[in-house]
Every structure is written in C-alpha cells, then in structure tokens.
C-alpha cells in the first residue's frame, strides 16, 4: 500500500504495490520486467522547492529517488520503463493557472525526460480518480477508475503470466 507522499519498491515475487484513489496525485511506477523489480511513488505536488524529508511527495525528487531504489534492487537503468496514472482535474480551484493534477503530470513527465526514462504507458488527466496496482513479479500495471473495471495498462500486449 503506497499512501499519499510515500513510495515502495520490491523485487519479491507475489508483491503487489497499490495506491488507492489517486486524484490530482500521480502514481508513478518504474519497472524492469526482466529483473522483476518495480517501484511505485504516490506523488502529491510538482516541486519540492527545497523541502526535504519526503522525496516521493514531489515530482522532481520522487523520480530520481524511485529510480535509485529500483536500481538498488537490481533493475538495469536502460531497461526501466515508466507508467503514470492519476493527475486528474477533480475540481478547478479559484485562482488562475493550471490545476495541481495537470502540473503534477507535466512535472513528472519532464523529470522522466531529463533522466531519459521512457513512458511506456500513461492514464493521466481527465476528471476521475483512479487506483493503480503494480504486480512486481510479472511487471503488470493496472488501473481502475471509480465504479469501473480494472484495465491493464502495461505491458501493452498482454503476456501469459
């Protein structure tokens, strides 16, 4: 269970990393399918702006922290794929500018581009909350919106488990 501002990573068969009910937050999964290693961060805000202590909470610190974590478990950096879920615009708060969901999405994508991690799949934006599940052993990522069925996001072509 990966709650708001937290992250988790694993290389253990049978482990499933889950973030329930992502709204404007982003569930960022980094996976190396061949090494059966995966990590999931529950990103809340776009930029840490010098704040320390909770790297997974901010897009700019979450991406490198999670990458280090999965590499530490044996993932090969060149094989790591990213999957993004969340970043919905649930409410448009007064006070101009883009909303938190869109800014989170953009910030995570920018950081992934900087670190040259390809985005293999994404289900971001829109106006509904989502739950993300990452099956560590098989490298499968699924997403589910409220009142909807679970859909496979990654890998693109379903593989036999």
């Amino acid at each position, binding site marked *: 269970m990966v709650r708001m*501002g937290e992250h988790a990573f694993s290389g253990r068969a049978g482990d499933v990393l889950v973030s329930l*009910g992502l*709204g404007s937050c982003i569930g960022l999964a980094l996976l190396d399918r061949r090494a059966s290693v995966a990590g999931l961060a529950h990103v809340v*805000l776009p930029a840490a702006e010098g704040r320390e202590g909770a790297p997974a909470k901010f897009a700019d610190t979450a991406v490198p922290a999670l990458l280090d974590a999965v590499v530490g478990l044996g993932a090969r950096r060149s094989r790591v794929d990213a999957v993004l879920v969340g970043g919905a615009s649930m*409410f448009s*708060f007064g006070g101009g500018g883009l909303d938190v969901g869109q800014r989170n999405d953009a910030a995570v994508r920018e950081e992934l581009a900087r670190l040259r991690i390809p985005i293999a799949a994404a289900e971001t934006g829109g106006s509904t*909350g989502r739950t993300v599940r990452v099956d560590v052993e098989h490298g499968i990522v699924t997403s589910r919106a*409220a009142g909807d069925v679970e859909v496979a996001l990654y890998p693109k072509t379903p593989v036999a488990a």
Partner: protein
Amino acid sequence: MSTQFTELQLDALRELANIGSGTASTALSSMLGRSVDISVPTAEALPFADAVDAIGPAERVVTGVVIGVHGDMAATVLLLLGESDAATLCGLLGVDPADELAASALGEIGNIVGASYVNALSAMTGLTLEPEPPQSATDMLAAIVATVLAGRAAADDIALVLDSDLRVEGEDCSMSFLLVPSHGGVQELLTRLGLGD
C-alpha cells in the same frame, strides 16, 4: 513554525468547528424541514496519508462538495456524502438522484451549509472570509480528499482536519463536514482566539 498543536489549541479549534457545524445544521434543517443532529467534532492534526485514512476507506465512492474559502484565511470546506446518503438527500429535496440536476442540488446544499459554516467562523473570529462557488464530484474518497489536501495544505506535511457529522433525523442520512485550513490559516484562527504561538 510548529506543526504540532497543544491540547488546548485543538480544543479551541474543535469548539469553532462545533459552532460552525451547529449553524450549518440549522441551515440544513430549515432547508429540509427536518431536524438535523450534529456530533461532537473531532480536530486532528495528521500527516497527509493518515488524514486520508482517518476520513474513511480510500476506494469508497462518495460525493464531495468543495467550497474554497479566501480572505483573511485560506481554507477549504468539504462536505462528504456516501452514495446512499446523497440519494436520500436528493429524495428529501424532491430531485431524482440519477438526474443531471442532482449534482447541482447537492452543490446547492453544500453551498448553503458551507456558507453558513464559514459565516459562523467569520463572526466568531472577526476574520473576513469569502466562500467561493461550490464544486462537486462523485469519486473515490481518497481521490477527493487527497486533491483537497494537495491543493490546500500544500507546503506542509501536516493537515489539520476538523470533522463534524450531520445526521438528518428520521432518515438514514448523514454527511461528514470537513474544514481544511491552510497552515497559515490555522495560525490565524488560533491568534484570533488568543491562543497563537
């Protein structure tokens, strides 16, 4: 700035929430023509993740009516209703829950109840508080609550959540009423109560 509150400060905030929700329940009661009971509110200062857990099961589908507050204090008032509670409330208002009007009717309830809550706070503290138009969404509880926390308590790890329950007498219908001030807003509230740091 300390992110922890003393018991005395939490008591004072709870009392504010109590008077605010009392006023709100009167507004709701006169709208529905039913009496409305309120619970003793809880005031908790919790890390983000714990705050979401404390409010309810993450994937439970709820309707949230969000009212932004600006002025001397930035805050968000959030009214949460379970699916059946929202349907009952629509029924009491004579609106079909499946109808497009339902969201607007619930938004209006949120508006009147939320505005009376905010006005009560304003009258008690002398702060000028302006409620914004309500917005409603039906979605997973965690998605709604986390979005409000992210938008409001932005820079802090700790969210202050003042939670009151309103229950419509004679109906199986209750709603949860949350006030989520920004961190600076909490200090402002406490200062006005003579309990600032």
